């Protein structure tokens, strides 16, 4: 009951935050002087191509870029009718990309869910690696296991991701016959999902997951180790040992449960840092994720495209924090029962 109420409450605060974020994104994108079309018009006039100018002027009207900024925002969001009636994000119209001369939805299409897939895989990798290693490093602190895992972890943190990507591609291809670049065999691109296509995607995911995940995993491992070491000194651990519990069970049941909180709270932060952190890697690896597209859009002031992508990343982040908050309430009775009289 408490849980459900909290989840509903959390959902509405998320919507509210999303609204504020949308204003921020729109304002920030419009901060640099000029927009894609006025830049283009200036360029075309300089080179004396009047036909192009007319088209650009038409587009300015078409997308209401001649109106004041607050109206542009309202039209973009779909709160206010534009030249073609209500047609904004809320109505499912993501806008027009001037750079690619195609609707945003068409450009983004496949890359959206591929981004989600790549990053989810990376996060799963982070957790799968950091969890056992962090616990073992804490339980065997100041032994060779601890030192080795810390050393490998720092290597992972310090190695530039794109370098790691190139090395892995080379050796992966040479010894395991792993494919180089892309997220699927080019033959499957544009085809509907099939068993073979899925297999191809999974094989292509191995290297990117590893590359994007390593630094996150080693950072998280160190954090978990530090948390665990704090907890291992607490009296309740001693109580559990004095009960006669076996060390492995004791570790997972008691200190890990407590040390786990910051771990869960990190889910929200992990998502955006991975999306933005993986831009370079995506370029190097040739992944069809949203990162490289965002980079082009920002460089060319392609405002609808970049605004949409930023909104998408914000949504991912907010969903991540919402999930971690709800998980925390489920995991920790001290948060759950706050305000209940004892």
């Amino acid at each position, binding site marked *: 009951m408490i849980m459900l109420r909290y989840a509903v409450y959390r959902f509405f605060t998320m919507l509210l935050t999303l609204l504020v974020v949308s204003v921020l994104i729109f304002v920030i994108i419009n901060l640099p002087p000029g927009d894609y079309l006025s830049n283009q018009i200036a360029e075309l006039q300089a080179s004396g191509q009047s036909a192009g100018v007319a088209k650009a002027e038409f587009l300015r009207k078409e997308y209401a870029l001649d109106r004041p900024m607050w109206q542009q925002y309202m039209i973009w969001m779909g709160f206010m009718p534009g030249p073609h009636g209500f047609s904004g994000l809320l109505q499912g119209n993501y806008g027009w990309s001037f750079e690619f001369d195609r609707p945003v939805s068409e450009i983004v299409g496949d890359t959206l869910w591929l981004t989600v897939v790549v990053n989810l895989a990376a996060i799963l990798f982070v957790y799968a690696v950091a969890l056992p290693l962090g616990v073992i490093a804490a339980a065997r602190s100041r032994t060779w296991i601890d030192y080795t895992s810390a050393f490998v972890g720092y290597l992972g943190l310090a190695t530039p991701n794109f370098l790691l990507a190139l090395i892995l591609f080379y050796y992966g291809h040479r010894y395991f016959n792993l494919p180089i670049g892309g997220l699927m065999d080019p033959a499957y691109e544009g085809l509907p999902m099939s068993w073979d296509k899925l297999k191809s995607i999974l094989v292509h995911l191995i290297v990117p997951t590893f590359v994007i995940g390593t630094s996150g995993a080693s950072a998280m491992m160190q954090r978990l180790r530090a948390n665990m070491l704090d907890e291992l000194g*607490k*009296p*309740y651990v*001693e*109580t*559990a*040992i*004095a*009960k*006669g*519990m*076996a060390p492995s069970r004791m570790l997972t*049941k*008691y200190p890990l*449960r*407590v040390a786990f909180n910051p771990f869960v709270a990190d889910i929200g932060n992990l998502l955006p840092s991975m999306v933005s952190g993986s831009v370079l890697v995506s370029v190097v690896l040739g992944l069809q994720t949203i990162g490289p597209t965002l980079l082009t859009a920002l460089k060319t002031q392609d405002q609808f495209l970049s605004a949409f992508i930023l909104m998408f990343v914000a949504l991912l982040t907010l969903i991540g924090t919402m999930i971690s908050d709800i998980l925390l309430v489920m*995991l*920790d*009775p*001290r948060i759950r*029962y706050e*305000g*209940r*009289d*004892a």
Partner: protein
Amino acid sequence: MTALLSVQDLSIGFGTGDPVVNDVSFDVEAGQTLALVGESGSGKTISCRAALRILPRAAQIRSGSITLNDAKGRDVLTEISERQMRDIRGNRISMIFQEPMRSLSPLHKIGNQVSEVLWLHRGASEAQARKEVLTQFERVGFPDPARAYDSYPFELSGGMRQRAMIAMAMVSKPELLIADEPTTALDVTTQAQVLGLIKELQKETGMALILVTHDLGVVANMAEQVVVMHKGRVMEAGPAGLILNNPAHPYTRQLFDAAPEIPDKDAVGIPMPDEDLILEMKNVCKTYTMRSGKGWKADKKIFACRGVDLKLARGKTLAVVGESGSGKTTAARIALGAELPDPGSEVLFRATDTDEPTMVHSMSRDERTAFQRKAQMVFQDPYSSLSPRMRIQDAMTEPLEIHGIGTRSDQRDKAADMLKRVGLNADMLKRYPHAFSGGQRQRLSIARAMMLDPALIVCDEPTSALDVSVQEQILQLLEQLQASLNLSYFFISHDLAVVARIADEVAVMRQGLVVEQAPPETLFYNPRHPYTKALIAAQPEPDINRPIDLKLVALGAGSPDSWADAFRFSDSMIPSLIELEPGHKVRCHV
């Protein structure tokens, strides 16, 4: 007959350093209670933990043996494998720890944590274990065992948590229970009840008990055999009666001399003088509202202080005693202006005898700054009240810096001077707090409080985290400073023996009300209120012939509804404080 547990020539050391436990030997017979007595650092805790082999990682057992000899066989605990050891822990030997607040996992239900012992050692099913644990919960005095089973530790009071710990240790019916300072963190009345419970359970099950404690009063109440330890060695060992009545070793005698006692001579104290009051609290009330979190239930009101009237004359000590939650700390915080009382309350402060009194809670900015210079505080826990990242010099000169007093070198001179005053060396200024012992740290906090030349010092249980002999030194220091500087103390404590020693006037608080107030001599010789009587009775005395009267404790420490008619109170009807004899006030109906 061989002893149940036999410790022979045990030596334990850390790394390559000198051993911290040196050739310690003692025996525990089945069904008997052995007390290991000593101050912190004496090695008492580490020697009893060696029996379960739960030592800090850097510690090793260097020599000697520990042998367990019970119906299930004879095992040399220092030699068996870790796996065999696990079968003994929690099964044949269990342990209770000092801090009930932190010895239970905060994220697991009490029932789960206690049942675990049965799952581990008896292979019991969930339902079987639950049944047995509920019986055990009832036995250790949970009013509603089923509810406790599904509670989390933070929903229970300290006393209840310690009962849960006892239940956890007892549920497997061990041959030997090791209790490491089981009641040190509890209020005196709760301590008395928990000790009574352990004793009763022991009588029922016939288990042996090793009680680790620094409190000779607890020893006198519980033990048949006593081992006195000091710096890792056994100083004296023997039957409790013999050692307590006639300590042979000088160290044991020293421990006795340091333990403060509640006097019960026929004496009438001098009431607190009525003129030149430095602090006066008139009708101070403080109500906290606790949100129920449920729409249909009204918010709960908690009365932390209800109509508290207190007077502190210049150069005197006013002590407020009571259990945790009685409102004594709230009263002190209000006196310092750290908390805003309910409207209608008045707190007056006079910095010098010629000043006009000022209202602490309606001061201007300048008045407040001046007031803060004159009223300072010494905290309970010397380990957490000094920043570990600040040198002593910085911690001590900080108040002067905040108030912009003196040049840098003046400030340093003053700090050096103050250190000498509290019995430390001026060359310690460059050190960090971790380089000091508990007693030294408490001297440091006192020195820091003294830096601004205050007239009033609020001491919040300044000695309860310290060993008895150190406590004695700190009390002496406080008295000495009071005598030479004409300081006034607002002294908060739950320890009546300490209060008896230092106070000029004592106010006993319960549920936000002052229930009895008198000079200590009068109060201790002639207590009138059942709660005061319970507090006095609960204080363990190092005299084997005067055990704690548990009935008297239960009578007074229970809820006000169980008191005699004359003393009862409820939220709507509170009797007033009546002066029975000059300076002796009791809250009762006439």
